């Protein structure tokens, strides 16, 4: 058992942390978020230059030989800086699918993801599917040697900046069946793809993505036809671990800002940080953050274990981070008082990001149920 980071991981952290400090301060971020584009392609190019986009991929695939822990390191720093660029959708999700794709798919897309020239978004959610990854109304029907995709994907994060989508669609079976889910790579400029782009409450961009008789070849299928759900679940669990890391970064900063504020803000003639009721609240925030870090390590270190162990680990982490993030975010606002409600202070933006993280890839309730259902697998048979 070992909880140390490698030298390379330490270097990633240091260089990224410096870059964010120097070029991603809060005022700069506000301007970027408010701009027409909503992100900085130049910043993405710098991330590529630092090797961040290659870090979690194996050397055989042209990466730096890292893995989920490297993604965790990057995402935690992103969380601290409220970085909006699409590392999670493109590198963790897009890359997560394609590194498990065919050689041709790797050749066509993986190098592009690592260089930053191709940007992926993960179009899995649907307006009526909530968090169920197999509750799909989007269909892909056989059409000659390929497929024709029809459907509506909801809140696809990073889609306005994407060049490609990973799309889940039903190729057979009933609406929520585990069997019959297939994963496709679809170019954003493919005929029949249209989007409605919009900002999200936490400073990112997303789209509703519509597929109308979009023709794709058989080579667009990632993994097996009809049997894509296990792959979707695997990549989603990796994404959950990375998302948890981002939440840890955001929680850390929200907590530090709150402690600092309480030291300086005076009421009744004294710094409010001297009040025990607030001290204990901030200690509880600290403990939530620490435990979130622990759970993020746990989920990240277990992504390669057997399916049940991996899923339970991801769900457990997502539950704890959802609860911890909500507590830390809400209390950060509360202790900042009226100032916490203002748009000009950074703390509210951390709160907003933490709030949205809970809803991504399944919230507390969803994962508590998934964890419970998975725990029931080894239950004794009911004795009436």
């Amino acid at each position, binding site marked *: *058992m070992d909880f140390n980071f490698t030298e390379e991981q330490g270097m990633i952290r240091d260089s990224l942390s410096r870059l964010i400090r120097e070029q991603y301060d809060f005022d700069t971020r506000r301007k970027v978020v408010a701009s027409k584009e909503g992100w900085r392609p130049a910043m993405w190019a710098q991330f590529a230059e630092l090797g961040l986009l290659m870090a979690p991929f194996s050397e055989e695939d042209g990466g730096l030989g890292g893995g989920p822990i490297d993604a965790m390191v990057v995402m935690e720093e992103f969380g601290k800086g409220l970085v909006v660029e699409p590392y999670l959708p493109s590198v963790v999700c897009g890359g997560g699918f394609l590194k498990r794709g065919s050689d041709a798919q790797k050749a066509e897309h993986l190098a592009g993801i690592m260089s930053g020239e191709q940007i992926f978004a993960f179009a899995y959610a649907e307006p009526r599917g909530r968090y169920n990854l197999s509750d799909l109304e989007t269909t892909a029907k056989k059409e000659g040697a390929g497929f024709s995709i029809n459907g509506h994907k909801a809140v696809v994060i990073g889609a306005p900046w994407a060049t490609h989508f990973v799309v889940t669609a039903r190729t057979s079976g009933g609406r929520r069946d585990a069997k019959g889910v297939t994963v496709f790579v679809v170019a954003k400029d493919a005929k029949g793809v249209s989007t409605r782009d919009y900002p999200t409450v936490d400073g990112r961009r997303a789209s509703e993505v519509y597929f109308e008789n979009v023709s794709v070849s058989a080579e667009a299928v990632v993994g097996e036809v009809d049997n894509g759900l296990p792959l979707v679940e695997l990549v989603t669990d990796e994404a959950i671990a990375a998302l948890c890391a981002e939440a840890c970064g955001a929680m850390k900063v929200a907590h530090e800002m709150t*402690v600092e504020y309480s030291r300086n803000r005076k009421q009744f003639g004294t710094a409010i940080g001297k009040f025990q009721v607030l*001290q204990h609240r901030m200690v509880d925030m600290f403990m939530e953050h*620490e*435990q979130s870090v622990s759970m993020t390590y746990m989920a990240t*270190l277990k992504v390669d274990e057997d399916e049940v162990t991996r899923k339970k680990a991801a769900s457990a982490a997502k539950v704890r981070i959802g609860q911890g993030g909500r507590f830390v975010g809400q209390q950060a606002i509360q202790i900042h008082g009226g100032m916490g409600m203002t748009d000009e202070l950074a703390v509210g933006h951390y709160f907003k990001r933490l709030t949205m993280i809970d809803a991504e890839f399944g919230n507390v309730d969803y994962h*508590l149920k998934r964890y*419970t259902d998975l725990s029931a697998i080894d239950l004794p048979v*009911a004795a009436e």
Partner: protein
Amino acid sequence: MNLDFSPEEVAFRDEVRTFITENYPKELAGVGTREDLSRDEFLAWHKILGKKGWSVPAWPEKYGGTGWTSTQRYIWSEENARVDAIMPLPFGVAMVAPVIYTFGTEEQKKEYLPGIRSGDVWWCQGYSEPGAGSDLASVKTTAVRDGDEWVINGQKTWTTLAQFADWGFFLCRTDPTAKKPQEGISFILVNMKTPGVEVRPIKLIDGGHEVNETWLTDVRVPVGNLVGKENEGWTCAKFLLAHERSGIAGVARSKRGVEKLRAIASEELIDGKPLIQSGDFARKISQLEIDLTALEFTELRTLAAESAGKGPGPESSILKIKGTEIQQRLTELTLEAVGNYAAPYTAGMEPDGSNERGVGPDHSNFTAETYFNMRKTSIYGGSNEIQRNIISKMILGL
């Protein structure tokens, strides 16, 4: 970063597991932590481990520690929890011993450490007083120098299992004129057989006799029983409290407790179906398990930091707070799980044959008593509110 056990660690686990299977006293199997054990029952495993050289893993090697890595210590506690082993009590091994080998003289180390290691000498803790609970520094018990002796007068309380103790370590005020309450306190060892020491039982809400009042009336002990410097006992006291906290998470034991809870909830029925199949209750267990996982990995991170050379710091307060919250929640859910049969008062049915113990299913016995008893955990060892004060001051700098 990885969670794998190396081949050496797997071999270590097998060695430990075999040793426990072959040597743990059969008659104590599954007895767990119930407080109505005899002195010999409490010490049985300790003595076996003492002979093996495994009774004090965390001590420095030169005093008899095993030099195990943090992973080995993790394996060790997991393997003992598997059989609900009654582990060496903390008062000697984890409290007074680290103070003695850190602040004591060579003579004191030679005199006291072997008996603690072997389990032959039972220690108790004389910290709290009727007027000094969480506010430990307000101790009133006095020790006055008289020639070659300290003369101690005062009253201690909550002295856990003092009815069995051979020795006790006491915080005494040696300089009543000191400016701050933390100053002028000394850390003194007292043989519990010394004339003037009187131990009186306190019955708790669970019916058990676990703690005592300890009265000290003109108790005379040699000046050599002072550990550390005169009037600087607070240094020892604080050091001890940090050590006390680090083992307090009780992760392995709580994991075993969750297994038991799941087993109970699989047998108990609700509307004809196992309770564990009720979504409401199952999700409560899930939440508990998830919180326990968070604690486990927080402890592993702390252990890793410790083996990298950092002693138990204020972070151990997190382990105390979360560990005790989880222990309490576990007993609370177990109480809920047994339903009506939580009510029979097992401790109130004397095992003298007049009123046989054992109403309801076996797993329901002592559930309420255990729940009541575990409320102590967020109060002792520095209440959880004190732990928050420590984190606030030492880590957040408030």
